[in-house]
C-alpha cells in the first residue's frame, strides 16, 4: 500500500524504475484515448493493466514502444527518452522511424493475435530479430532460441510453421520471440484473449514463470486470476485515465474508487 502511495500522479520518477511514463496523451480524431497517464514499473516487477474495453489500456501499451506515437507526454526506459529527443531549447523532437526502430527492440512485445511471421518456422521466428536486427552471431542466436523454445515446452515444435501450431503453442513461440531480443521490459497485449479457454492456462503458466523469475512486465489482461496472483501492482484504467493503482490484494478486496468497485462487481 505504501508503495502504491509513492506512485501517485506528479511524483518524481523512482530511480529504481525501469519504465517511467509521464503525462501520456493520445487522441484518435476527436476521441481522447489516453488522457494524461503516468506509470512507474520497477525492475523485476509485473504490472497488470485492467479496465473495460475501450479504456485505453491497449493504446497505452502500444504507446510505450511507440507503435502508436503519443501526442504528448514522455516514456523513459532506463532513463532514455523513447520516441523523441530534446532539442537545444528542451523541446521534444520526434525521432525518425529508423532511430525509433532501434529503441523498440528494447521492448519485447506479445500480441493478442500472436502475429507470428507465417513464412518462418517457430525457430525462425525466435531467431529473426536477434540475427537480422541486432546483428548477433547466428549460431549463438540459434542456440539461445532453441533454449527459449525448450523453456516454453516447445522443443519438439521448433521446425513447425505457425500454421501448424495451436493457439497456445503460437503464443508461447511469440513469448520466446519477445524474450530472444533480451528486452528491458516485456509488453503483453491481452495475450490470452484470442485463445480457446482450454489453452489459456498454458500461456498464463509461462507468464507466471516469467514474473516469478523477475522479468519486468506490463500486462494488459482480462484474466483477474492472473492479475491477482502474478502482479506486483494493478493499474485500473477507465476513459483514458488511471482510476486506481494498488497492490493486487488491496485492489481486489478493498478498492477505493467507486468506478473500480463497479467494474469488479460486474465481473462477479
Amino acid at each position: 500500500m505504501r508503495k502504491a502511495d509513492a506512485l501517485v500522479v506528479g511524483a518524481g520518477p523512482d530511480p529504481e524504475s525501469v519504465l517511467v511514463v509521464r503525462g501520456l496523451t493520445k487522441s484518435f480524431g476527436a476521441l481522447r484515448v489516453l488522457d494524461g497517464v503516468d506509470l512507474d514499473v520497477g525492475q523485476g516487477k509485473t504490472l497488470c493493466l485492467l479496465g473495460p474495453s475501450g479504456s485505453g489500456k491497449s493504446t497505452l501499451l502500444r504507446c510505450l514502444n511507440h507503435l502508436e506515437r503519443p501526442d504528448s507526454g514522455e516514456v523513459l526506459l532506463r532513463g532514455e527518452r523513447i520516441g523523441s529527443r530534446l532539442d537545444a531549447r528542451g523541446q521534444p523532437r520526434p525521432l525518425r522511424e529508423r532511430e525509433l526502430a532501434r529503441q523498440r527492440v528494447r521492448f519485447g512485445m506479445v500480441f493478442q493475435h500472436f502475429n507470428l511471421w507465417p513464412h518462418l518456422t517457430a525457430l525462425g521466428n525466435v531467431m529473426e530479430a536477434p540475427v537480422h536486427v541486432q546483428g548477433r552471431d547466428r549460431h549463438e542466436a540459434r542456440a539461445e532460441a532453441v533454449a527459449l523454445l525448450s523453456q516454453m515446452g516447445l522443443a519438439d515444435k521448433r521446425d513447425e510453421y505457425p500454421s501448424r501450431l495451436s493457439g497456445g503453442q503460437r503464443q508461447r513461440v511469440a513469448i520466446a520471440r519477445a524474450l530472444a531480443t533480451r528486452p528491458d521490459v516485456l509488453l503483453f497485449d491481452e495475450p490470452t484473449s484470442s485463445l480457446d479457454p482450454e489453452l489459456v492456462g498454458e500461456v498464463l503458466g509461462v507468464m507466471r514463470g516469467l514474473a516469478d523469475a523477475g522479468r519486468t512486465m506490463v500486462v494488459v489482461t482480462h484474466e483477474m486470476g492472473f492479475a491477482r496472483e502474478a502482479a506486483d501492482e494493478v493499474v485500473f484504467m477507465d476513459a483514458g485515465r488511471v482510476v486506481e493503482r494498488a497492490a493486487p490484494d488491496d485492489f481486489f478486496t478493498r478498492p477505493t474508487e467507486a468506478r473500480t468497485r463497479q467494474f469488479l462487481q460486474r465481473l462477479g
Partner: protein
Amino acid sequence: MIDNFLIVLGEWPTIAWGFATTVWVSALSIALSLILSIALFVAIASGNRWLTIPLRAFVDLMRAIPFLMLVFLAYYCLPLAGVRLSSWTCGLVSLVAYNTAYFTEILRGAWAHMSAEQADAGRAFGYAGLRLYSRIILPQTLIASGPMLGNQAITLIKNSAFLMVITVHELTFAVNQIQSIYFTPLEALLVGVTLYWVLCLVVEAAVRRLDRIAAVRGSA
C-alpha cells in the same frame, strides 16, 4: 491427315524456333515483371502520395486496356515519340508493362488481405524502412500470392501469342506461317496448341507446388 502432320513436322526448325521464342520471351517477361512489380508494390505500400498516385494510375490503366491494343500502341506509336524498338523488344516491353500491372495488383491484394498487425510485429521488433519489407512483408506476401502469380504467368504465356501481329517469330507466328504455306491449318494449329498446352502444364505443376507452400507458410 498423317501426311499433313508429317509435312508440318518436317518444318520442325521453324516450330522449334517459334516455341523457343515463346518460352524465352515469356520467361524473361515473367522475371522482369516480378522484379518491377515488387518495386511498385513497395512504392505503393509505402504510402508516399507522389509515388502512389501515378503508379496506381499506371496499374489501373494497364488493367483496363486489351493487351492487343497495348501491343499496337507500343509498335506504332512509340516511334512517333522517337523510340525505335525491334519488334521483339517491343513485344517484351508490352508483355512486361502489362504483366507488371497485374503482378502488382496481386501483391497489393495479398498484402491488403493480411493483417496490418503483421507489419506491427515487424516494427515492434525493430524493423523499419526497406528491411521491414525485405525480411517481413515481402516474403509472406510473395508466398501467399505465389499461386495467383503463377496463374497470371499462364495468362502471360497465352498473351504472348498476340506478338505475332507485330511479326515476332514466336510459336503462333510459326504455325500460322506453316499453315499458310502448305494449307494445313488443322495440323499446324494442333501442333501449336499442343505445345502451348505442354508449356502451361509445366507452369501449372509449379503453381500446384506454390499452392502447397502457400497453404503452410502463406498465413498463420
